[in-house]
């Protein structure tokens, strides 16, 4: 049974991406709902089905939860039609999470591409709320164009902070006249701006093609596979490890994942043979396409 939640606010992040700020209708549920950075939930638009997105707000934020989605399929189209004050369903939280406890006292490097910033943002905000417990923090975020950058407001805040290094880049051709960030693809920008690989944990999320080219760069810079965390997404339906859809090898992404280290992923069957990492992070694309 999903809980019902009210859409408190709608934020248009980019032409095709939207963020919902949600509050549970039931105060009791709102109190009890707890999750950890990296977990996901099933959001339903009644009449059109359920879709899986990560929870994009920080677990330290108790008043509301946020989710961001890109309009792709049936459910996301239906969600986009909803207005402020409407009701959606939420089940969750499901899956595992980023082991923040283990990250403590280490340097963190966040690398995100496109909508892949959503799960990373959850971790970033969580980490920033506990800023003292971590060492250097670097954020590298790339999008196709300036208008495709999401969480623009927060990016500004991150940039303003002295205690983190924020590098924002857009693909060549996507920049505007007033753009003051980097221009170039994420792997290239990473090479220029990467911190020391010693004692650093990488949190990586983005489209398969980005991950394909970023991984060799990371390895070249001396980052260890065990310290590269990412979150996988596959087409999911139940979120409970039953429906069999997200199964890769021995793993049900919805239960044993979605957070994996690159070392763990290497051990899975290379189902996605051409791109070793093809499956990684198709945030939001899990909605039931077909349309």
């Amino acid at each position, binding site marked *: 049974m999903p809980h019902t939640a009210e859409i408190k606010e709608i934020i248009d992040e980019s032409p095709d991406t939207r963020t919902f700020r949600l509050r549970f209708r039931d105060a009791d549920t709102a109190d009890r709902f707890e999750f950890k950075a990296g977990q996901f939930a099933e959001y339903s638009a009644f009449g059109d089905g359920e879709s899986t997105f990560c929870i994009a707000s920080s677990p330290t934020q108790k008043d509301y939860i946020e989710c961001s989605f890109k309009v792709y399929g*049936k459910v996301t189209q239906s969600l986009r039609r909803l207005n402020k004050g409407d009701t959606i369903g939420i089940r969750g939280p499901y899956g595992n999470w980023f082991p923040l406890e283990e990250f403590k006292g280490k340097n963190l490097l966040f690398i995100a591409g496109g909508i892949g910033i959503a799960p990373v943002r959850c971790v970033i905000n969580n980490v920033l709320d506990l800023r003292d417990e971590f060492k250097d923090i670097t954020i590298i975020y790339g999008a196709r164009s300036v208008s495709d950058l999401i969480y623009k407001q927060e990016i500004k805040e991150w940039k303003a902070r002295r205690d983190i290094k924020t590098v924002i880049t857009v693909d060549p051709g996507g920049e505007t006249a007033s753009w003051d960030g980097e221009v170039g693809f994420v792997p290239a920008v990473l090479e220029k701006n990467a911190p020391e690989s010693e004692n650093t944990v990488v949190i990586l999320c983005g489209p398969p093609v980005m991950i394909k080219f970023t991984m060799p760069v990371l390895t070249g810079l001396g980052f260890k596979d065990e310290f590269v965390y990412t979150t996988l997404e596959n087409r999911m339906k139940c979120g409970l490890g039953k429906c069999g859809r997200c199964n890769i090898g021995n793993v049900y992404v919805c239960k044993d994942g979605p957070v994996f280290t690159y070392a763990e992923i290497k051990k899975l069957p290379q189902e996605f043979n051409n791109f070793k990492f093809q499956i990684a992070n198709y945030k939001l694309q899990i909605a039931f396409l077909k349309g």
Partner: protein
Amino acid sequence: MKELIKHARELLENGEVAAVIGYRQVSAKRTKPVIITDPEETSALVFNEYCLNNLAVYLTKARIKLLCKKNDKVLKLAITAKPCDVHSIVALIQENQIDRDTIHIISFNCHGVAKDFGFDFNGDNLASKCITCETHKPLYYDALFGEVKETPQASDTALARIKEIESMPHNERFEFFKSEFDKCIKCYACRAVCPLCYCQRCITDKTIPCWIETSSHQRGNFAWNVIRAFHLSGRCTGCGECDRACPADIPLSLINRKMSMEAKNLFSFVSGRSLETPTLVGSYNEKDNNELFM
């Protein structure tokens, strides 16, 4: 049989065809499809009363078409087909799914097949399509084998059943079909084996908007089976594969046969019989029957 093997071997060895789609024996009363690209393997090819599959279904598959592409050259595809399977191939050619020039049809003089694997071949166990079959010799072929033999006699029970259903009042008919369709488990085996169900994306797979409910409850089953029957009307060549594939034993071919009878009555058209005439639903005639319309 020897001639068939020899012919297939020559085709492959001379590089005329990329692959031969044929049958191989798995046990005494059962064969299964095989796709052969290696001349050495042609010895497995057979043709007999247990070659039930309509291999034309493979012709529309993208992965089979891929087999034909060799060093920038597109080779032909050889297919062993019963005379009734040739009808399906003709229908596919008419609907521009395949090109006659890319297909090498190896056909046979046919005297009928068994209704299913494991049955003795005789009048009682004759496939229902063979009972009324008029084409024991294929209409189109590139190579012809097999000797002419007498088809066993059998009574046309399917026709009798159609007549029986037609004599029922509408509400009984509705209940009859509702209960038959209720057995459907939506495995879509009927769609998969049908050579004419070649759509890349079937209407049931389209969910924005969702026209046919994917759940296999009464209403979803009813809609699916009616729409499938409609999409095949005037196109179905009556190979009966859907009937054989259905795990729930729904008499799908009854409806298909009824619709073929209508095509014959209304438009004197039989699907898959001629390469020259256009398809029935893809064309029109200004003088068509107009009685239906007020």
